[in-house]
């Protein structure tokens, strides 16, 4: 079994700060892999490096055995990489269905001429895209919302829509950045089921999440980041026992108490 995603000594240096510091990450196909760590540990930055929105200072990203380090984000998406964002970035002015159709861009092949001339092939592709988009909306439970402007959805449904948009083209790997943030317990439980279904349908999942119950419940593997460094990689059960993980989180609690006194910016 070849590793689906590998980072080799992946490093991003911001002025005076290693946001990601020599991270070696291995995500196996068919797995749900959790990436955890205190705020500011570099989880979102690592996602940006993997998805190609930010170029690393050093290191390599291998996806499906290919060196994608110098590929732009859109090319990585075409190879089967998908992601959501920590704060939703749905297309608010489009309808829910149009959002998912836009996510199907890797499956759009109709050229300019076929599009302008409205050839039978154009209609065939468009019908297939709409069918796939509706199936995906059904899977996340948003069928009834298909024709609403996406901006009018409540928060939890916007997060589900962003997941639907990402999984519509059946990517090999899905990156979820804090998908349960702001969800109530019922929504979080439904999300856990959805993540399992996504994995069972053949999309591996790498997710950042602070809800430890959620992480322990659905993950096959856990990687812990602290100050940009990978401090642990193993099973969820082993992560629970590891002293270095406890330390990172206890340190975080103290830090949070201190930071609560001063206004803070989240990136």
């Amino acid at each position, binding site marked *: 079994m070849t590793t689906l995603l590998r980072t080799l000594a992946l490093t991003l240096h911001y002025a005076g700060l290693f946001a990601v510091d020599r991270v070696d990450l291995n995500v196996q196909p068919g797995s749900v892999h959790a990436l955890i760590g205190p705020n500011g540990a570099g989880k979102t930055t690592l996602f940006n490096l993997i998805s190609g929105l930010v170029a690393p200072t050093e290191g390599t990203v291998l996806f499906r055995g290919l060196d994608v380090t110098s590929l732009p984000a859109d090319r990585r998406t075409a190879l089967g990489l998908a992601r959501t964002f920590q704060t939703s970035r749905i297309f608010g002015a489009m309808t829910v269905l149009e959002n998912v*159709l836009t996510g199907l861009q890797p499956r759009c092949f109709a050229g300019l001429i076929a599009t302008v001339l409205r050839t039978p092939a154009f209609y065939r592709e468009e019908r297939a895209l709409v069918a796939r988009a509706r199936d995906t909306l059904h899977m996340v439970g948003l069928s009834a919302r298909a024709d609403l402007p996406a901006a009018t959805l409540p928060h939890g449904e916007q997060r589900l829509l962003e997941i639907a948009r990402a999984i519509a083209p059946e990517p090999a790997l899905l990156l979820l950045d804090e998908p349960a943030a702001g969800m109530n317990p019922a929504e979080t439980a439904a999300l856990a089921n959805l993540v399992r279904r996504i994995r069972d349908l053949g999309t591996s999942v790498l997710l950042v999440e602070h809800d430890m119950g959620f992480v322990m419940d659905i993950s096959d593997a856990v990687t812990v980041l602290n100050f940009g460094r990978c401090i642990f990689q193993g099973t969820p059960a082993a992560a629970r026992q590891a002293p270095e993980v406890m330390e990172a989180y206890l340190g975080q609690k103290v830090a949070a108490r201190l930071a609560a006194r001063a206004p803070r910016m989240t990136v």
Partner: protein
Amino acid sequence: MPEWLDDFLWTYQNLVHALGINGLLALSMYVVLAVGQLSLGQAAFMGLGAYSSVLLTLKLDLPFLAVLPLSCVAPVLFALAIGVPTLRLSGVYLAIATIGLGEVLRAVYLNVDWLGGALGLSGIPGRAESWMIFGLLGVAILALWAVGRSAIGRAMAAIREDETAAQVMGINLARYRLGALLASAVLAGLAGALGAHSSSFIGPNEYGFEPAVTILSFALLGGIGTPLGPVVGAWILTLLPEVLRGFSDLRLVFNGVIIVLAVLFLPEGLLALRMRRHAA
């Protein structure tokens, strides 16, 4: 053609042609705005089309139906030269790179003898027919409408809303932006050739910064929800000075006010119709 229509077209030929040509110019602005970019070079592209078409007509005496497509060559080459380096980057680089283009080309037209200098080029045969102008306008509206309601149109809408998210959807931003700029150069080049062959004279002052602002105000007034919006905006701004004769000195002020009002109060344009892309 019924006699009354013939008479009408004869009397108002200049105005009728201006409506069609300004419609094409509005569409050339629209395609750029539709991928979230701003170009201030539309009048310059039009000028390149106008000057090259007139040279082909006057020096080589090519038939006008051959001149028309060839008039797009120079605008497209300039669009490539400006677009390739600027459209890889996100931001206002295209606007900055095009802001001076019209004025630079004006200086060239003024100082190059075989381009007519300050006198411009005159004795242009009136070969642009209404059917050509409105035929091209109709085709352009239909083509842009078809593109708007397709995966390509969805990609353009995605780029307008959120470039980062669009890129993560697998959309190659530079390719769409450059494609839009090239389409816009073609439309402006055609409009330039048609305009030049509707009047007997072209001069260096017709394609500078001022007309570029006018073209922008067409699209901002009409909005970019559908390709019809900018065309209607162009028609309103073409007809108004005819209706309000005597105020023609205030034209530029008027266009400026429209831009400010449109940006402040009508971000989606006068025809606040959203582009509906319901597929199949």
